[in-house]
């Protein structure tokens, strides 16, 4: 697998991680090692095996639609760096700021 510095930069950007030149180079070799390790799986014949999406073999447990007490607004906001009108204050949002962004 050819994982390049460009790929590292792209993924780091998506994850909003600041990665230095030196770190990027080290990550390229680390990630390539991980991918090479995982590639061993390609040696197996899996035509008749259904994809595994989850480690647990069991099905999803469901919950009854019953209301549980919520936090008070004070409690919910207690860790917020800044609060106004019982809401979290976040810095100005820059639209079109790289990958990701406003979504529903």
């Amino acid at each position: 697998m050819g994982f390049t510095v460009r790929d590292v930069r792209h993924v780091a950007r998506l994850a909003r991680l600041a990665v230095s030149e030196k770190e990027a180079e080290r990550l390229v070799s680390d990630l390539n090692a991980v991918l090479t390790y995982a590639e061993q799986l390609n040696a197996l014949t899996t035509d008749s095996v259904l994809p595994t999406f989850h480690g647990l073999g069991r099905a999803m447990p469901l919950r009854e639609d019953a209301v549980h007490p919520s936090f008070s607004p004070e409690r919910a906001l207690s860790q917020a760096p800044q609060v106004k009108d019982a809401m979290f204050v976040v810095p100005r949002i820059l639209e079109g700021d790289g990958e990701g962004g406003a979504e529903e």
Partner: protein
Amino acid sequence: MAAKAVGYDVIIGLEVHVELKTRTKLFCGCENRFGAPPNSLTCPVCLGLPGVLPVLNQEAVAKAARAGLALGCTVREISKFDRKQYFYPDLPKGYQISQYDQPLCEHGQLAIYDGRGNYVKTVRIRRIHLEEDAGKLNHLGQRLSDAAGSLVDLNRAGVPLIEIVSEPDLSSGEEARWYLNALRTVLSYLDISDLRMEEGSMRCDANVSLRPHGWAGSLGDLPRVEIKNLNSLRNVERAIDYEVERQATRLAQGLKIELETRGFDDVSGRTYSQRSKEEAHDYRYFPEPDLPPLRLEAAQIAAWAKALPPLPDRVREELKAAGLEAKDAEILVQDPSAVAYFRAAWEAYGKAVPVANWMLSDLARLLNAAKRGYGDAPVPPAELAALLTQIDRGVLSGRMAKEVLEAMFERGESAEAAIRRLGVSQISDEGRIRQEVEAVIGEHAKVVEDFRAGKEKALAFLVGQVMKRTRGQANPEVVNRLLRELLSEPVRPSGS
């Protein structure tokens, strides 16, 4: 007017988000309620605090599956949840739990009708998946671009949504509006959502492309523009019409259409660029490790399908078969509470058309003025039926019945009580009316002579006189008939 693009086919697909009306959120027990004080409906799960696990709300699954079944979809026995990752301040976890490649429902369809109730086409539905809503942002400033910052309310974070994705089968803004209207009608029969576009419980994104005639490639290769967050049926139509014209104009000038996301400005009626292709999404979906696959029993899916109420297509046919005009049937069909009211009144009264006529004229007018719906009409269906029966019996004229209906509406009275209180019952007793008619003939010898001489208009005067003597309560049909009868008798010599 629908926008035209000469030399091109207009290709439109819609993505509609609908908030489900459950008691609690999708993955936690916080209440799902609109309009609560900011950040009063949150917990560690929907705040995205570390170390918590989501647990799926079974009622949200049932409601999503019922929506799928009502739209003719196949509900998968096994579906799965995935993480869609992006950063935005209304999304506390940094990802949204959604469904990517194995959605709950697939392959449905929806018939659409124009405003007069005429069938237009059937639109295919690609998929319906279940996902969680984001929080709500309030920008500190007039618009996002010059806001100093934003305020985040996470009450809505984690509210269950279904996203209904159509195939690109629509070809105008008008058709898109009809589709949304039909979709909203079907969903309203299921009572699974408030479906209020102005409150955001139903939201629409539109994908618009122009395909050159004779295009041999796949639709996926056409430059596609996505218009986000359209918040009314009217704006969906306006935004699409504007966008079709914008693209057609660019193409006519030899310019390219950029693959991009655009917003719609309600005031100017224009779409504007939000994000271009260079910022294309890379959501890095992967299976949600906190949730095993969702398995549903085939028997459960079958039971949901069986328990669906009669849906709009069937009700529309039923109403037309009962003799209603397509236009009238369409108005009733779009409101399930109107259909329920109609059925009850029809059953009590026996005839369909008069019920529909009274509902759509006088009762609708009173309901509109009082800002009420058929569901909480002060005149119950059985009382409308009782009122119509009094017309048939000749107790009330049509005009009197309107007056009685108003009184019933205002006071919540029964038809009988209102008739008694107002003293408006019609006189249909022939003996009684004959007396009055004879008296009038005796008093107006000149007019009688005119009529006998062929002056047809004179009759109206005589009818008026009889009505006056009976304070408007004589049955006009009987008055007319008796007048003609008595006036056609040979003139008796006076004094004999």
